[in-house]
C-alpha cells in the first residue's frame, strides 16, 4: 500500500518537476508555458493518450499487454464516423457500435490469451495486423462523417479544460474505483501478481484478464471516438501513430510494474501528463522534431531508472547493525518491518 502510494506520489513529483523545469526553460526564452493556448494544448494531448493508457494499465496490471490499441483506435474512428454518417440522431448509434466492436476485439484478444494460451504480445500484435489488413482493404483513406454536435466532444472546453480531458479524467476515476471496489478489479492485481496463487485461492484467473482486455479495447475505442470527433471523419491511418508503445511508456512512467500486480491508474494519468508536458514544452521551445524523439527516449529511460532505483532502496530493510556501508551488490527484497520484530516470534 505504502509503496504504491509512494511510487504514484513520486510520479506526481516528477510531473511537477518537469512542469517547473519546462516553465523555467520557456521563461528563459521569454515565453510562458502556462498560457491558455499551451495549457489547452497540453490537456488535449493528454486526453487521447490518456484513454489508451488507462486501458493499457488494466492489462499490464494483469501481466498482459495490448499492442493492438492503435489499430482499435483507427477502426473505432472509422466505425463511429460511418455509423454516424453525419447525422446527429445517429450519434449514440455510433458510440454504441464502437463500444461493441472494440469490446468484441478485446474479448477476442482475451480469449486467445486465456483459452489458447498465446502470449499477449503475439496475440495483440497479430490482432493489430488483422485489423490493419481489414482497414487497408476495406477503406482507402478517411471514411464516414461525424455530425457537428459530436465534434463538440473534441473541441468544447470548460475554461481551460477540454471536455475530452474531463471525460478522460472521469474514465480514470471510474477505473480507479473499479480496481478498488469490484472483485474483478481487485483480482486483476492478484492475477498479475501471481496467476497460480490467484487460481489456488479460488480466483477464476481468466475473468479479470478477459475483463482487462475488453476494457482496454473499449478505452482504445473511446480514443477512436475522440479521434473521429476531432477529425470530423474516421481515419484509418491513425494506427501508424505509435500509440501502443507510447501508452506502454506512459503506464510504466506512471509507476505501474510492467510485470503486473503493482501500480494503478492514478500514476498512469500522471505518466500521460508527463509525456504531454514534454511535447508541449518541446513545442514551445521550438525543439527540432527529431531532437524531440531523442529527448523523449532519454527522459523516459531516465525516469523509469529513477523509479527502479528508488524501489531497490525502499526494499532494503533497515539494518540491524547500521554501518557506513554501501548498498550490497545482490540483495533480494527484504521486509521493511522485519527488523522491528526480529528475534521475536509471532
Amino acid at each position, binding site marked *: 500500500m505504502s509503496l504504491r502510494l509512494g511510487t504514484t506520489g513520486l510520479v506526481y513529483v516528477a510531473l511537477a518537476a518537469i512542469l517547473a523545469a519546462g516553465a523555467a526553460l520557456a521563461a528563459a526564452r521569454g515565453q510562458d508555458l502556462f498560457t491558455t493556448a499551451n495549457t489547452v494544448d497540453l490537456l488535449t494531448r493528454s486526453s487521447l493518450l490518456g484513454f489508451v493508457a488507462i486501458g493499457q494499465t488494466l492489462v499490464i496490471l494483469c501481466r498482459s499487454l495490448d499492442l493492438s490499441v492503435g489499430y482499435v483506435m483507427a477502426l473505432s474512428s472509422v466505425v463511429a464516423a460511418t455509423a454516424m454518417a453525419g447525422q446527429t440522431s445517429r450519434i449514440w448509434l455510433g458510440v454504441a457500435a464502437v463500444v461493441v466492436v472494440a469490446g468484441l476485439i478485446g474479448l477476442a484478444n482475451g480469449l486467445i490469451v486465456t483459452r489458447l494460451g498465446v502470449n499477449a504480445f503475439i496475440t495483440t500484435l497479430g490482432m493489430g495486423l488483422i485489423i490493419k489488413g481489414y482497414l487497408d482493404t476495406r477503406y482507402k483513406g478517411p471514411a464516414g462523417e461525424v455530425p457537428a454536435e459530436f465534434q463538440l466532444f473534441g473541441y468544447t472546453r470548460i475554461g481551460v479544460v477540454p471536455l475530452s480531458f474531463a471525460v478522460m479524467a472521469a474514465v480514470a476515476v471510474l477505473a480507479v474505483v473499479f480496481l478498488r471496489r469490484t472483485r474483478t478489479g481487485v483480482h486483476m492485481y*492478484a492475477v498479475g501478481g501471481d496467476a497460480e496463487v490467484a487460481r*489456488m485461492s*479460488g480466483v477464476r484467473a481468466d475473468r479479470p484478464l478477459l475483463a482487462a482486455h475488453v476494457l482496454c479495447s473499449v478505452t482504445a475505442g473511446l480514443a477512436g471516438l475522440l479521434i473521429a470527433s476531432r477529425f470530423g471523419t474516421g481515419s484509418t491511418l491513425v494506427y501508424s501513430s505509435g500509440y501502443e508503445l507510447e501508452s506502454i511508456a506512459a503506464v510504466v512512467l506512471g509507476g505501474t510494474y510492467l510485470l503486473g500486480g503493482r501500480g494503478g491508474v492514478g500514476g498512469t494519468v500522471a505518466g500521460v501528463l508527463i509525456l504531454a508536458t514534454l511535447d508541449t514544452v518541446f513545442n514551445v521551445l521550438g525543439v527540432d522534431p527529431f531532437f524531440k524523439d531523442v529527448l523523449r527516449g532519454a527522459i523516459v529511460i531516465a525516469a523509469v531508472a529513477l523509479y527502479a532505483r528508488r524501489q531497490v532502496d525502499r526494499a532494503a530493510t533497515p539494518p540491524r547493525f547500521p554501518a557506513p556501508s554501501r548498498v550490497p551488490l545482490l540483495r533480494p527484497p527484504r521486509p521493511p518491518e522485519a527488523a522491528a520484530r*526480529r*528475534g521475536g516470534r509471532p
Partner: protein
Amino acid sequence: MNGGPQGPLLRMSGVGKSFLGVPVLRDIDLQVRAGEVHALVGENGAGKSTLMKILAGVHRADAGTVELDGGRVDFTHPVGAREAGVATVFQEFNLLPERTVAENVFLGREPRGRGLRAGVDARAMAAETEHLLEDLGLTAISPHAPVRSLSVAEQQIVEVVKAMSQNARIVSMDEPTAALAGAEVELLYGLVRRLKERGVAVLYVSHRLKEIFDLSDRITVLKDGAEVATVDTADTTGADLIRMMVGRPVSAVFPEKVAGTEAGGVRLEVSGGGNERLDGIDLRVRSGEIVGLAGLQGSGRTELAHALFGIDRFTRGELRIDGERAVLRSPRRAVRSGVALVSEDRKTQGLALHRSVLDNGRLVLDAVTPRGSRARSGRLPGIFSSLELAARSPSQEVRFLSGGNQQKVVLAKWLATDPSVVVLDEPTRGIDVGAKHAVYTLVRRLAAEGAAIVLISSELPEVLGLADRVLVLRDGRIAGELPGGASEEAVMELAVGGAPAASGGEVAP
C-alpha cells in the same frame, strides 16, 4: 458440524492420477472423519501433494471418486472445492507478496458491502482479518501490512489463517511447518487442535515424525503413489512408519563419521565479521569438520550463509579461506575461492526449473569456469548416480522432479566444483527420510574428503547429530558454542537468550 460419527466426512476411493502418462497415484482409498487429524506420510514424490491437490480442485483425478458427506464431488477449479468447504494450505507459498494480509486472507471471496459501501468492502475485510488474528492471539501481524513485509514464518501463519477463515469442514495442510521453528510450530499445534475441537477434519502432511505423533489420530502411508497402510497413531511407532515409507529399515538416522575423517587445517576463518545484519562473527571451520549453525527464525543464519558466499558481504572483519585473505564480493568470487552454498530455497534460488537435470548440474561450471567445464561435467553422471538421483534421463527438466530429487540436483551442481568449503542452508527442508539420509551421508563423505562444512538447519536433531560443534546465533551475533551431541535444551537456551528453554526446544522427531 455435520459428518457425524456414523460416516466419514471425506471419502476418496480408487483415486488415480497420471502426469504425462506416468502414474503418480494409484487406487488410493482415504477416509477422514470429522474432528479427526489424519496424517499423510510418505517419501518425496510419494504423491501426498498430488492427492491434496485433487481434493483442492487443483488437479482432477483420472480415476476414482471423491465424496464429501456422502455426496460425490468433482472439482474442476479450486473455487469449487472452497465452496464445498475444503480449505487448503499448499506446500508452496501461496500468497501475493504485494497485497496486504487482509487482501490475501480474503482473496477470491472478498466481502461486498451494501449501499454507499457497495463493492469490495476493504474496511470490513481488514476488520474481520484483525478479528481473526486477534482470536488466534496473533496481534503482531497487522491486516494492513503487505505480505512481503512479513517473515517467512509469519507468512506461513497467514496461510493457515487464510485456510481457517473459510470456516471449512475440511482443512488440509501440506507441510505447514516446513518453514517454521519451535515456537511457531507450537502455535500451529494450537490452531490444529482448535480446528479439531470445532469438528473440522484435518488432513496433515509432514515429514517431521514428531508432529505426526503429536497431532494425528490416524496415519495413512503412501509409497510410490500407492497406499501402504492406514493405521491408528496410537498403535504405531516411528520405526514402523519409516519402514512402511521406505520399505526398508533405515539403519541409523544419522550416519556415523566416515572412518579416517580427521580435522585438518583451518579452511574457513572469519574474525570479527559483520555487516548490516551480523556482528562479531568469529568462526573457524577446519578441513573435515562439520560446524552446525542453530538459531531461531530470523536469527541471521541465512544472512551468515549469504555473507560466506558473497551474496551479502562482510563489511567488517576479515575472512580467510585456506589461510588466504578473501574478499567475497559476489557469489562468483566465492565459487572461485572454493565455497559452495546449497541455498535455502531450491526452486527460486537453486534451480533453473525448465532446464534439464544435466544443464542444472553443469550450471556452476558453465557460469564460473567455462574453460574446463566440458571436461569436468563429464563427472556429473557419476555424481548423479552416487546421489541415487531418480530422474528419467539426464535431459529431463528438473521441474518434473520431486522435491528431494531436485535437492539432489542442487547438491550435484556443487559437488561438481570440488568445493573446499560447503555451506548448506536447510538442505533437508521438505524432503523425505530417504533423501535426508542421502544428504547426511553426503555431508559425512564431503567431510571425509577434507571439505569444511557449515550446516544450517531448523531441525535441531539434525544439527546436533551431524555437527562436531554447534554455533548458536541470536540477533545476528554468535550467542555461544556447544559441542556436537549437546542437548536441544542447551541450544534453545542460547538461542532465546538465557531464558529457560521453552517447549520450543523440542523440535522435530
